[in-house]
């Protein structure tokens, strides 16, 4: 009645309207800052958060897959405050507390990708849709990585790639939701080229055998660029099917090609088989063009070296990381992994372990699991203590920029694990490149797709 008696003044209307606007619109936004109201895929609501491990437990890269699984389980233990903490205490800077991620206990689900892109994609879909995975990680082939990364972009789920070395993963196929810690084929070529020139001279004829999928193609291209820049001639580049097993039909043409270097752009069991069979064909005992015939394996791993046995001795390649580096991070991880599993970790295990920690740390720093905020926390993030020296997660392509190792098969091993020796640690600056050279488009982070 009072209101009617006094009438509605203009000031009163404005005051009431402003109060209403503030009360119903702005204030809730203030209180829910950082909550994003469940509007993203698999927002964890209980007291656990689930990670999806997409592992090649069978197929050409199964050895790597088994080691990756061990590394993930160790990383998750450490994140949950169990075990010796591993690299949790050495990551710099770090927001990790050893109480899970954002106070939620970390759980995991797994899927066997069979080292096949389509199976990897199906497994990732299942883990996101059925098991509620907030993040997908793993893989040992770039075919898998590119396929799963594309899927994760569509589903709004972050993908922390395992072992993938193709230029395409953070090049033409890069995605906003995909991140790679591992180095790439381009960096292998840049790091390895000068060492090959120094060891084998400038006048060489190279024959490439190349795994016929994205990684092999970019590895071959990168090695061709690096060796042709030295003055080497490329005699032939022959594609071989992934998982071929018997490479004899591809190796015999090498013998009469006039080539004096065989570059095996193979990985995993393919590399073990092709290298072993090349040695059986007597290639390492041959002299061609007045020079000792040489074999080069641009991407090496400890597991492959162990599988190939004495055939690997003296052969050059590159590696993302190696357990016998002397920095504190490497030593801590090797100790932790060795104590748990009775063998030193492979580079595949290392990259997967680090990726898990980096994702967890990014969530902690972002204060949320909301993927666009986690992406922001990872992009341009500079860190150290993980065994690779100071490392940058480059914002432009989501490629980690760090040192690259040139390695060689150990001539006189002191133990069954002493299979590779680090010849040179090529600095991060030396393997830096303009991300634009490989094209691609990261795409948007927002609006975050709802799976």
């Amino acid at each position: 009645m009072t209101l009617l008696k006094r009438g509605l003044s203009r000031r009163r209307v404005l005051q009431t309207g402003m109060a209403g606007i503030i009360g119903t619109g702005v204030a809730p936004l203030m209180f829910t800052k950082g909550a994003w109201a469940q509007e993203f895929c698999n927002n964890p609501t209980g007291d656990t958060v689930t990670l999806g491990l997409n592992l090649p437990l069978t197929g050409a890269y199964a050895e790597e897959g088994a080691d990756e699984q061990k590394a993930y389980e160790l990383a998750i233990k450490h994140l949950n405050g169990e075990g010796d903490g591993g690299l949790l205490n050495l990551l710099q800077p770090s927001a990790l507390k050893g109480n899970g991620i954002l106070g939620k206990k970390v759980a995991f689900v797994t899927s066997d990708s069979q080292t096949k892109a389509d199976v990897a994609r199906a497994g990732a879909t299942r883990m996101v849709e059925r098991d509620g995975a907030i993040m997908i990680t793993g893989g040992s082939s770039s075919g898998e990585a590119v396929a799963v990364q594309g899927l994760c972009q569509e589903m709004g789920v972050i993908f922390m790639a395992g072992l993938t070395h193709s230029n395409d993963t953070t090049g033409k196929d890069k995605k906003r939701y995909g991140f790679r810690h591992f180095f790439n084929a381009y960096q292998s070529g840049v790091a390895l080229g000068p060492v090959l020139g120094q060891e084998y001279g400038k006048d060489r004829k190279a024959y490439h055998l190349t795994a016929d999928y994205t990684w092999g193609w970019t590895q071959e291209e990168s090695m061709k660029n690096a060796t042709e820049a030295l003055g080497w001639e490329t005699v032939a580049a022959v594609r071989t099917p992934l998982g071929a097993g018997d490479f004899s039909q591809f190796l015999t043409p090498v013998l009469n090609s006039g080539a004096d270097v065989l570059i095996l752009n193979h990985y995993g069991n393919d590399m073990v088989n092709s290298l072993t069979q090349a040695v059986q064909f007597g290639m390492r005992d041959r002299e061609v063009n007045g020079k000792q015939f040489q074999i080069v394996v641009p991407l090496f791993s400890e597991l492959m070296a162990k599988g190939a046995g004495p055939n690997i001795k003296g052969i050059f390649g590159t590696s993302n990381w190696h357990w016998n580096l002397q920095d504190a991070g490497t030593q801590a991880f090797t100790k932790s992994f060795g104590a748990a599993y009775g063998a030193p970790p492979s580079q595949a295990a290392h990259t997967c372990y680090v990726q898990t920690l980096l994702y967890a740390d990014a969530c902690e720093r972002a204060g949320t699991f909301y993927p666009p905020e986690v992406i922001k926390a990872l992009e341009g993030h500079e860190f150290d203590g993980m065994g690779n020296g100071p490392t940058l997660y480059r914002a432009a392509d989501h490629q980690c920029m760090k040192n690259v190792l040139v390695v060689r098969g150990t001539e006189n091993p002191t133990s069954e694990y002493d299979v590779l020796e680090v010849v040179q640690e090529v600095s991060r600056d030396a393997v830096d490149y303009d991300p634009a050279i490989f094209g691609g488009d990261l795409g948007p982070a927002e609006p975050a797709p709802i799976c």
Partner: protein
Amino acid sequence: MFEAIFLQFLNGLDKGSAYALIALGLTLVFGTLGVVNFAHGALFMLGAFCAVLFRQLMTMETITIDPTKLSPWGAPLEVRAPLVQAWFGDFGAVLVNYSVPFSIILTIPVMLLVGIAFERGIIKHFYKRPHAEQILVTFGLAIVAQEIIKSIFGPNPIPQPMPEAARGAADIGIWLGMQANVITYPIWRLVYFLFAGVIIGGVFAFLQFTTFGMVVRAGMADRETVGLLGINIDRRFTIMFGLASVVAGLAGVMYTPLLPPNYHMGMDFLVLSFVVVVVGGMGSLPGAVAAGFLLGILQSFASMTQVKAIVPGIDQVIIYLVAVIILLVRPRGLMGRRGVMEA
């Protein structure tokens, strides 16, 4: 160019040896029992794993802890000592070095028993069923065998080293009066080819020159008449199934240094071997062997850089292409018998 062609010819003989050995076993089973045995690739794989098992037994170790030394991860060092060498001294070292050829001793009885168990346990119940059902049940048997091996030995290939003496390459060029290093070829692949020749020759001699073989051949031609003569032909055919298993197993054993065995290696060979059998002519033993070598050599030549430059990817399809052409021209295959697998 001659060197390249000659090397591919050798490669073809090597591949053909494996195809011929597997196809020979398949044809033995089909020719005697009339069964299309899709588990035959699994028998090849089981033979390879006999070699793996033998080597694992030969390389068993005792593990002692040396507290004075540390592993790279700071734990007390495990010192491993080979058990067989401790027991048998130098002979133990020979057993380890020659584990692949020695594993034949284990493979023959194991594969014979496996073959007889397959035949008596399952396959005999499907003799009078349609071929489609035989294929289904033997295919299922192959998958069961694969999964058992996978659960015991794991999913990853297990490399089997060849004996020291057979490592490296033989200089065949010198044998042919050429300069050194012009034509070299891995010794073990030559060994495999010779081994295949001995096995194939042995099987043919067994069928040709023994009374048992004569009865089996008679049974293959007319089972009912042989039965009417009072001969237990079923028992002989069971033994032939065991023999076919042994042939497949031995092919697998000797192949292990060339391709590390894994649980699905049999499937990789099975499809090709069936093509070989069909091209050779269902039920024809000489046809299977001839087609095995023919297709191996053709596949090898198709993988030459010069050939692939003209027809890219031809090495992947050549076998199937040739199979289609032969079946169009000669529907019974190269040496197929009238009435076999014909309505």
